[in-house]
Structure formats: structure tokens, C-alpha cells
């Protein structure tokens, strides 16, 4: 076949102040697994939204199977055989699986028939799913199955997958890849968006790299090293954090039988967590999203209070203490959600600095704020952590994800914590900022503090942690030395493949 399935020619889209896509052209063939690579803000999302009909390009055109293709809205794209698995925002928590699937289809059949087809397709591709379950009660991996099955029921010609593996265990990733390879062998093209380069090397035949909205290169990922692809994405040499051997000191924080009920309906209870953290070590905690990470951070930071003896810090029981008392003692935390949890989006950086640093830095005296001191502190964070912003008077909202994350982590590190707990420190952060944040965490540990890093990015955890433990359904495995752990062992610690199975139809 000389004509590709989908051809993009010169697509350009500008938003006020930023060009999201500039003259983007490439082809996707029938049955091809094509990777789209790029940092956050490189224009990947805008590009796939153009293909899916959510964004109209300012210039350029597309052809699908040789015919001009300009979808006005997603239903037209779906009718033409384009399906998309979103990274976030496309499931409805309070509805059941069948209803969620019906919402993603044109002319859906009656509910009973959908349920039957869900069972059939989920069996065919090894993605078990009960159509009557409420989506809000499903695990992240199961939710993704809902999205994938919703797409498969429409027999798509092109399946777009936006960061599909961020919520899966390594075993689940393997099974997902089997499913995708099977689809590809049946002639379905796949446009695969990710920044996990090893996965792309394992799965994709072709890759297009975007930087600042432009195509900066194409490569065959099977024959290109991950490091070369990363440097193509970033445009500069990457700095790899250095892990120097460090002396490990006494136990500073201990969790003893930490248990807590789920704080809300879709939360996870913590079940009998035992852990000892020593001065000068980085403890990595892995796990698939929704297995108790948020609850564990809350129990450590003091947002979720427990029985006194469950959390022991510097030989004092502090399980009942609220966040500020724990900060005063030297236990600091940076939660996952930057906007609205770690930082108040509409407040300035100075005000955000005050919010957590008042106690330790003395930014208030007799109930009155010390604005000068607070500003100096915020400026110090901005300078030390290379936060790109005009100044501390700017609102947190105006910073990019990576810069705000550097500020949030920097704000805690500058308070010289004895123990720092961070959740997803580099989620949605570009590669160079991520490297800087990891280096800062390692430096903190080198100065004798203990660091607990909770993350879903296993590569990150392997890179910086001394010991590794896994959270699974609110239970924490016993920590093991990180050096020498294999991917398979980690996967088993994370709960294995849950109930997924390999596609077992050889059609």
C-alpha cells in the first residue's frame, strides 16, 4: 500500500502567546505502531486533539485513507474510525462500566447488548471487566481497560493512546503491549504517546519527536538508544543525578502498625504498615496509583491523624499531631497535587511560601506576617532551585508544572527538614527539571536528612533510592535494597498482574 492510513501535512495551531503546533507533518501506515515523543508542552496533546476533532488547526490538512479529513467534532472522527484512550478526564465515576462505554460510542446498542459485547471483547483481549461495576470503585488499571474496550467496540482504524502505562504495573504493561501488538497485527494503527522511552523501544516501529510544537526528528526506536531519544526530546545533553554512597545513621522515623480507614468513598484504607527510616537514606515507595499513596502521605504529614504510637519520630509518638506541629519537629511533606494541595494556585509565591514555612522560618511574629522575611525566603527558593519566574509576587498558577514543582519541593528543602516526604516529585515535569529535583533530593539525603519518595515512576525510584518498598491495596511490603532488584521482582512486589491475562485468541 503506497497511501498511508493517515497523513498529516503542515498542521499549525497557535494559542494566544504560544504556538502549540508548527508545520507538523508525518504519516501513519496501516497497522503501524507509531510513537509520538516529546516533553510536556511540546504540543503532543494539541496534535492528537486535532486528529480527534477537539481542536481545529489554523493551517494544514489531514488525509485519511486518501480522502481529505477535517473532523469538526469527535463524533465525526469516531465515525471515521479514530478512537482515543485519554490520559485523564474521560470516565464518569458515578456511572457503571456499560454506561461509560455507551457514552463513548455513536449509536450505542441497548445496555444489555453492550454488556454482552464487553464480556466478549474483554475475554478476547484478556482484559477482564464486569460491565455492571461502578467506575469509581475500579482500580486505575481497570479504568484504563474501560477506556480501551470502549475504543475496541468501535473497530477503530487508528487507536490513539495518551500516556497509557502511567497507571500500570510492569506485568500489566506487558499484557497491554500484547493486546496492542495483536491489534496491530489485525491492521489497526496505533499512535502511542509516552515519555517512557524503554516502552517505546519495546513497542513502536516508528517515532516522531516534537519539541516546542515542531517535528525535530524521526527515528526507529528499536535501533535508537533511550538516551539519544531523550536528548532529541530535550534538545540538550541530559544531566544524570549522581548517587554517592552515604553513611546511614540511626532510625529517625518509624511506623508501627499504621492503620487508618479510607478517608472518602473512593479512597484506600491503610493496613498495618510497619517501616523504619534512617538518617541519610532515600527510601523509595512504589505502587500503582490508588493503592494508598495519598493516604500514606496524609498520615505522615499529619493531614490524616492516627493513634499516637503509630507514628514515631525522633523517639516521640506523634501520630496525633497536626501538620504544623510535625513541621516544627522537622517532619515535612510535599503532596502530589501541585495546584490546590501543595500550592494555592491564585496566591503569590511569597504567600505560598508562608503557608508551609511560617513555623520553621519564623515568618510570623505575634500573629502578624513578616512580609520582608517571607519575600526573602521565597526569593531564596527561586534562586536556589532555578525556578523560572519573574519574581515571588507572581501567582503560583502562572508557573509551568516543572517550575512550580521545583518551587514546592525547594520550599520544603530550604526549611532543612529531618525527614522529607514527597509524593510524585516529578509527575508531569520536563526531563531537565526532573533531573534537578532528583539531584536536590539526593543532596538533602547526603546532608543527613531522611527522604521518603513515593512515586509511580519505577525508573525514578531505582535511580535515587537506597531501599525500595511497594504499596499494594494499602499494605506496604518490607523494604529491600534497591541495587540489584529486577523489574520482575518489583512487579511482583507491586501486586503482579492483578487479574489480567494475556490475550488468548489467535485470530
Amino acid at each position, binding site marked *: 500500500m503506497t497511501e498511508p492510513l493517515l497523513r498529516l501535512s503542515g498542521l499549525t495551531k497557535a494559542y494566544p502567546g504560544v504556538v502549540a503546533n508548527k508545520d507538523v507533518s508525518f504519516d501513519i501506515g496501516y497497522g503501524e505502531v507509531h510513537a509520538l515523543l516529546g516533553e510536556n508542552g511540546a504540543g503532543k496533546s494539541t496534535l492528537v486533539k486535532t486528529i480527534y*476533532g*477537539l481542536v481545529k488547526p489554523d493551517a494544514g490538512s489531514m488525509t485519511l485513507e486518501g480522502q481529505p479529513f477535517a473532523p469538526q*467534532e*469527535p*463524533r465525526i472522527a*469516531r465515525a471515521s474510525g479514530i478512537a482515543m484512550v*485519554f490520559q*485523564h*478526564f*474521560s*470516565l*464518569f*465515576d*458515578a*456511572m457503571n462500566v456499560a*454506561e461509560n462505554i*455507551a*457514552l*463513548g460510542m455513536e449509536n*450505542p446498542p441497548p445496555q444489555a447488548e453492550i454488556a454482552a459485547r464487553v464480556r466478549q471483547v474483554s475475554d478476547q483481549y484478556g482484559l477482564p471487566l464486569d460491565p455492571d461495576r461502578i467506575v469509581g470503585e475500579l482500580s486505575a488499571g481497570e479504568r484504563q481497560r474501560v477506556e480501551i474496550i470502549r475504543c475496541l467496540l468501535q473497530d477503530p482504524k487508528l487507536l490513539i493512546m495518551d500516556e497509557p502505562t502511567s497507571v500500570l504495573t510492569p506485568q500489566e504493561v506487558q499484557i497491554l503491549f500484547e493486546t496492542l501488538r495483536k491489534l496491530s497485527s489485525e491492521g489497526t494503527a496505533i499512535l502511542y504517546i509516552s515519555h517512557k522511552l524503554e516502552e517505546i523501544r519495546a513497542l513502536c516501529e516508528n517515532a516522531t519527536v516534537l519539541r516546542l510544537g515542531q517535528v525535530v526528528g524521526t527515528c526507529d526506536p528499536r535501533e535508537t538508544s533511550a538516551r539519544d531519544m531523550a536528548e532529541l526530546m530535550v534538545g540538550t545533553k541530559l544531566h544524570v543525578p549522581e548517587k554517592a554512597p552515604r553513611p546511614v545513621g540511626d532510625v529517625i522515623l518509624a511506623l508501627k502498625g499504621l492503620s487508618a480507614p479510607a478517608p472518602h*468513598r473512593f479512597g484506600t484504607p491503610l493496613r498495618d504498615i510497619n517501616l523504619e527510616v534512617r538518617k541519610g537514606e532515600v527510601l523509595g515507595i512504589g505502587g500503582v496509583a490508588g493503592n494508598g499513596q495519598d493516604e500514606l502521605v496524609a498520615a505522615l504529614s499529619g493531614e490524616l491523624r492516627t493513634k499516637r504510637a503509630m507514628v514515631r519520630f525522633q523517639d516521640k509518638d506523634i501520630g496525633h499531631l497536626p501538620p504544623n506541629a510535625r513541621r516544627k519537629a522537622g517532619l515535612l511533606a510535599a503532596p502530589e497535587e501541585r495546584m490546590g494541595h501543595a500550592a494555592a494556585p491564585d496566591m503569590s509565591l511569597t504567600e505560598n511560601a508562608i503557608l508551609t514555612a511560617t513555623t520553621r522560618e519564623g515568618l510570623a511574629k505575634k500573629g502578624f506576617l513578616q512580609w520582608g522575611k517571607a519575600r526573602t525566603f521565597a526569593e531564596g527558593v527561586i534562586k536556589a532551585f532555578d525556578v523560572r519566574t519573574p519574581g515571588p509576587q507572581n501567582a503560583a498558577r502562572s508557573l509551568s508544572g516543572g517550575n512550580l514543582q521545583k518551587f514546592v519541593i525547594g520550599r520544603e528543602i530550604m526549611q532543612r527538614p529531618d525527614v522529607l516526604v514527597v509524593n510524585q516529585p516529578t509527575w508531569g515535569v520536563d526531563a531537565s527539571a526532573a533531573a534537578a529535583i532528583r539531584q536536590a533530593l539526593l543532596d538533602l539525603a547526603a546532608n543527613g536528612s531522611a527522604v521518603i519518595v513515593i512515586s509511580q515512576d519505577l525508573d525514578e525510584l531505582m535511580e535515587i533510592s537506597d531501599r525500595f518498598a511497594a504499596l499494594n491495596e494499602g499494605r506496604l511490603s518490607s523494604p529491600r535494597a534497591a541495587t540489584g532488584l529486577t523489574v520482575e521482582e518489583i512487579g511482583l512486589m507491586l501486586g503482579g498482574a492483578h487479574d489480567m491475562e494475556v490475550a488468548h485468541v489467535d485470530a
Partner: protein
Amino acid sequence: MDLSSINPILLLASLMVAATPILLAAIGELVVERAGVLNLGVEGMMITGAVCGFVVAVNSGSPWLGFVGAAVGGALLSVVFGVLTQFLLSNQVATGLALTLFGLGLSALLGQGYIGIKAPSFPDWDIPLLGDIPIVGPIVFQHDPMVYVGLIIVAGVWAFLKYSRAGLILRAVGENHEAAHALGYHVVRVRMLAIMFGGACAGLGGAYLSLVRVPQWTEGMTAGAGWIALAIVVFASWRPWRLLLGAYLFGGVTVLQLNLQAAGAAIAVEYLSMAPYLATIAVLVIMRAGRAPGSLGQSFHASR
């Protein structure tokens, strides 16, 4: 006190009548909230419907036309709310409160020449056969037609939300507007239609007061019924049949306290008048409210 003067059949029969205005307003608000919009202007739309319905009915002589006019009036006022919140992205709570104040003032202006006039009467339907059943007949089957229209709307809304594709889309928009938008549904269009339906229903509820229940026009005659309707939506966990239960409960306590007053109960009248509101609050607190629609009260803008 002479409790024997309270006729249980009459009590139950007037319960349905007393509950109808709140039921109509609440079922409209239920649809609005299921679409993810919090319109606190129910009181304002009710009283606007009351005056519009009264004016149209007096001038045309037809109570049916009056109800049509009330629905149109309520819907028009709700469009003001819709444009402000859905297109200009104003805060829904503040806009809803403003709508109530605006509706109260507007209705007083429109109704200036109509104070003291009697509305054209709306005779009770004596449904043949069913109305003759002893006890059940007078309780359930001898009311004016609007009582049944209200019940039909409740059943219709239930079936619409449960079985129709449009109802599924409406729930999806209320549950997660980002996701609904990403799948290609028109969030703002769905919400505008829901808001107008809510306005029309609130208008019907108001007109039921001015045309059937009272039946004449006085300023501020809704007297908080719109707020009770809002509370009942929460009480019902956004489900139509529980909403019917809540409206009847409130109607029942209202009628009971009136009867107790007439029977000369040895409790101060003020306490009796408080009773329906206290009962509603008590039930709201005791019954665990269900989960609100995920996007309730949030502004949506398709910026991404």
C-alpha cells in the same frame, strides 16, 4: 384540643395539593443539578411564574393558558441565569441568589394591578370510576389536573434519566464536564436546556400557588417554597422518586400543622408554623445525603 375534628382522609387528600408546588419546583431543580448546575434562584423563578401565570390566566380567562405563561416566564428568567453562568462564567451561587432577589422585585412590579383579584377557577377533576373508590378515591383521584401533571413530570424525569440516551448524556455532563467535552458532547448546550427546563418547572410550581392553592396574587407569596424545593433535591439524593417522598413529607407536615392549629392545639402557632421546616431539616440531617453530581456548581470553559 379536639383531634377528632381532623379528618384523616381530607388530611391526606390536601397533602398532595400542598406538596405539588414544591414538587414541581424541585423536580426541575433536580434536572438542573444532575446537569451539574446549581441554580439557587428557584424562589425567584417560582414567584415570577406565579405572577406571569396569574396575569395570563386573568386576562385570558383560562387557567391552562396561565400555566403555559408561568412556564414561559420561569424559563425566560432562567435564561438570564444561564447566559450569565454558562457563557459569561459568573459564579453560580452568587448569580442564583441575585436571581431570587431580582425575581421577587420583578414579580412585585408585574403584579401591581392584580392584587385582590380572584383567579379563574380550576375545577377539580372527579376522575370517573377511580374517584368513586372509597377512601382511596377522595385521597388520590379527586384533585385538580396539575397534581397529576406534577406526578407525570416526576415519572417522565425518572424514565428520561434512567432509560434515554439524552438522559445519560445529561448525567455525564453533570458528573464530569471535562470528560463529556472530551468525548464531544456540548456541555453548555445541555446545561442551557436543563436550566430552562428547571425554570419552566419552577414557574409551574409558582403558578400552582397563585392559581390553585391560594388562589390570588400577593407579593412574596411563595414564602420560601423555593428554598424548601432546593433542600428537598439534596434530601432526595438527586433521585426523582425520593424527591416525591420528600415533597409529600413536607406537604404532610404542613397540612398537619394547619389542622392542628384549627383544632386548637395547645402549642403556640409559631412553633406549629416552624414544624414543616424543622422536620425537613431534621430529615436532611438524619438521612445520609447521597453523592452529589461530580461537577455540581463548577463553571465550565472549553479552554483545553
